[in-house]
């Protein structure tokens, strides 16, 4: 024992460091490395405006004469553009940083949207049961039958038809968030419903019912904290899925415009030049996307194992 007085309670930080979750995290070297890489990438993209050597959004600063420059270690590369430039002279490194910011933003918000929808519907279905449960779960099954990409294309098509043509580029991000968010809520709803049905019969729920607390407060204040474990796992695993879906949609051309590119847009733009020798335009954003998705997934996998008591 350290020489602290016997009565002093461990600080919050000490408790976190000594928790089983923290110990299990530190014991898994792969997870530590993955988390480190993911955090660095997310931090770099959030701070893109500070770190990036150029501003790819600033059309005035882009010089068409700098276009298609290779990475610095190739013949013809310049020190100013570490990873080379694209067809209109934007610095690839800077566009990746800004692009992953866009990708991560869309990923996080769409996961948050599906989490809110899924958790709410799942709680109601699990707690209320009966007809409401049947309706919500049949809805979920219908949703499951439709592939995410198709739903996204549908929502995209509708929104683009409805929105005035001048605003199409502005609503593009919203379209992505809505379409990804609306097609991924089912997993959350199913997990929450199953846990809620277990929690509903627990005696602590009966006890708060006896106090006279209403069903909404019971669901969100008492049951929700107890079912959050699996939700966080699904959210982490879905984050990488959402980033990939965003990239796919942007690659298909229904995503964000190439003036404010995400990683998917960059890959899409780059593929046109892949066979003309300018491989760096698509390979570097592709590698960044792969690394981001891989590390987030590794952390999610670890979280799933660590929070599952039935796996040793």
């Amino acid at each position, binding site marked *: 024992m350290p020489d602290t007085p016997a009565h002093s309670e461990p600080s919050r930080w000490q408790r976190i460091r000594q928790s089983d979750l923290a110990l299990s995290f530190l014991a898994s070297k792969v997870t530590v490395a993955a988390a480190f890489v993911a955090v660095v990438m997310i931090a770099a993209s959030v701070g893109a405006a500070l770190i990036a050597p150029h501003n790819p959004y600033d059309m005035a600063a882009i010089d068409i004469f700098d276009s298609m420059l290779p990475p610095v270690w190739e013949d013809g590369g310049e020190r100013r553009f570490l990873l080379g430039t694209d067809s209109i002279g934007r610095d690839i490194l800077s566009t990746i940083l800004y692009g992953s910011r866009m990708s991560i933003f869309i990923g996080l918000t769409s996961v948050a949207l599906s989490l809110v929808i899924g958790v709410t519907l799942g709680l109601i279905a699990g707690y209320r049961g009966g007809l409401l449960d049947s309706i919500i779960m049949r809805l979920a099954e219908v949703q499951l039958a439709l592939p995410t990409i198709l739903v996204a294309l549908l929502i995209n098509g509708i929104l683009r038809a409805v929105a005035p043509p001048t605003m199409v580029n502005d609503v593009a991000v919203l379209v992505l968030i809505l379409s990804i968010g609306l097609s991924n809520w089912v997993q959350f709803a199913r997990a929450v419903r199953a846990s809620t049905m277990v929690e509903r019969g627990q005696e602590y729920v*009966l006890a708060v019912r006896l106090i*006279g607390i209403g069903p909404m407060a019971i669901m969100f204040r008492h049951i929700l904290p107890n079912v959050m474990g699996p939700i966080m796992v699904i959210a982490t695993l879905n984050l990488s899925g959402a980033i990939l879906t965003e990239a796919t949609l942007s690659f298909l051309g229904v995503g964000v415009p190439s003036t404010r590119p995400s990683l998917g847009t960059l890959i899409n733009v780059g593929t046109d030049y892949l066979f003309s020798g300018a491989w760096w335009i698509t390979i570097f954003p592709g590698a960044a996307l792969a690394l981001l998705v891989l590390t987030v997934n590794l952390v999610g996998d670890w979280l799933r194992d660590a929070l599952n008591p039935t796996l040793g």
Partner: protein
Amino acid sequence: MSLLELRDLKIHFDTRRSTVEAVRGIDLSVERGEILGIVGESGAGKSTIGNAVIGLLEPPGRIAGGEVWFDGARIDTLPEAALRRIRGRRIGMIFQDPMTSLNPLFTIGDQIAETICRHTGQSRTDAMKKAIELLREVGIPDPEARVNEYPHQFSGGMRQRVVITLALCADPDLVICDEPTTALDVSVQAQILALLRRLCRDRNLGAIFITHDMGVISEVTDRVAVMYQGRVMETGPTADVLSRPQHAYSKSLLAAVPRGDLRLHRFPQLDYREAGETRAAKKVIDLDTHWLGRRMDERVQSDTPLIQVKDLTMRFVSHHSIIPAWRRSFTAVRDVSFDIRRGETFGLVGESGSGKSTVARMIAGLYDPSFGRVFYDGSEVAGPEAQPMTAVQRQQIQMIFQDPFSSLNRRKRVGDIIAEPIRHHRLATDRAEVQSIVGDLLDHVGLGAAAARHYPHEFSGGQRQRISIARALATRPQFLICDEPTSSLDVSIQAQILNLLKNLQADLGLTMLFISHDLPVIRQMCDRIGVMKAGELVELAPAEQLFEAPRHAYTAELLSLMPQVASAPAADRDVMP
């Protein structure tokens, strides 16, 4: 040479942070034809010993020292392959839960015959014949037909008989029974205990009987070892240890066992603690000044019973369908009527599935009865003409649940759990007052105000049950429903909780509905008792009359099955160590 001998056995569990010494050097022996009881409270290391003897210690558990000798040979150093030849064949094992110790995918006959073939090398036909013979011996009717049935077609007691058959089918010399009757109803328990005793006699088996139940120890064992925190406190012939316990811990354990033959005012407070919390001095609550006594004017003094239950019936739907004729339901409670008078403790007793808890939950308003009415203080709270419960009524009916591990929200601090009803009903004016009330309630249940900052998992089962009681008191209830409040607790903890409930009732003038399957506990707590069987109330009588002169045959049967601790004179037990 004893059949089994443990010499200075030590068992350690290595965890990430430290080593837990589960068994700290014990010496025990079992002779042929002798039943040795190992008794103690949870965490004493009883089951660990049983598992260690047959080499079934789960990692990280390991034998850290000492020797295990079986029939003249040392077995704790044997390799796994050699142990496997002893386990099952020469040492049989009977576990607590008959629901999980049989494989649900194989028939009873297959499981027994496989074990026989494996251990004795008999042909399958012979093994099947022997299986039938053994099933007949353990009292399973029509064994020829039942060998082809699956475990789920057997009741709990019958399943435990099959588990016993499995343990005996290779003619072992020693049987280790780990809480073999804990999961069973009292009437089934009596049959299983008699069966085990007869089998051990007939076959001249040695047996180790691990249990927390003094009544079981008293009925079955020849010798008993009392364990506490990994050590044997006392060992000797069962009758001697039970009637004249020598060690302070044995005395405190025996004093805490509820007696079926006599009603005590309070359980004697014999505490044996080597380490642990100190008990807060009991404070008497002065209702005129105390928070819990405020709003006493809401309590109308009248002669109508506080609770009136009329023809209560509950049907659960077992098969849903749109077409009414296809729906199936089963009746959990049928035409139950009784009154609970102000200030009394009304007991409901019965075996599992008799509908006790369902009745309690209908009174509390958690279930809507299919038929019948419940009146609280003269107004209908459940039934065809019931109004929704008012906030005041809601506050006045509170409940304490059976399972201390699921009755507290594991994500909330104890302080918030208890403050919840106070905040919801706005029983306090500001945050500081809420905190002082919570602290005060925790003091009264013997935990101390500091407990408010902690989470439920930091407390033991008994302490959690105290938290539940504090939460129930926080609405200033008038009527408290206790649904098996102590059945998952150790006897010494049970005695403390029951005393606490009695004290609170005396101080606060509570009316209580007390539900238990345990007759001695019911006798200690209740003024009037209702006996339930298969959803019906078969007898209702004052406590003493029910125990001394039961009128219904079922009551008499329950009473006769109650395990009796070969009792010491009451005077002996009240002596402080």
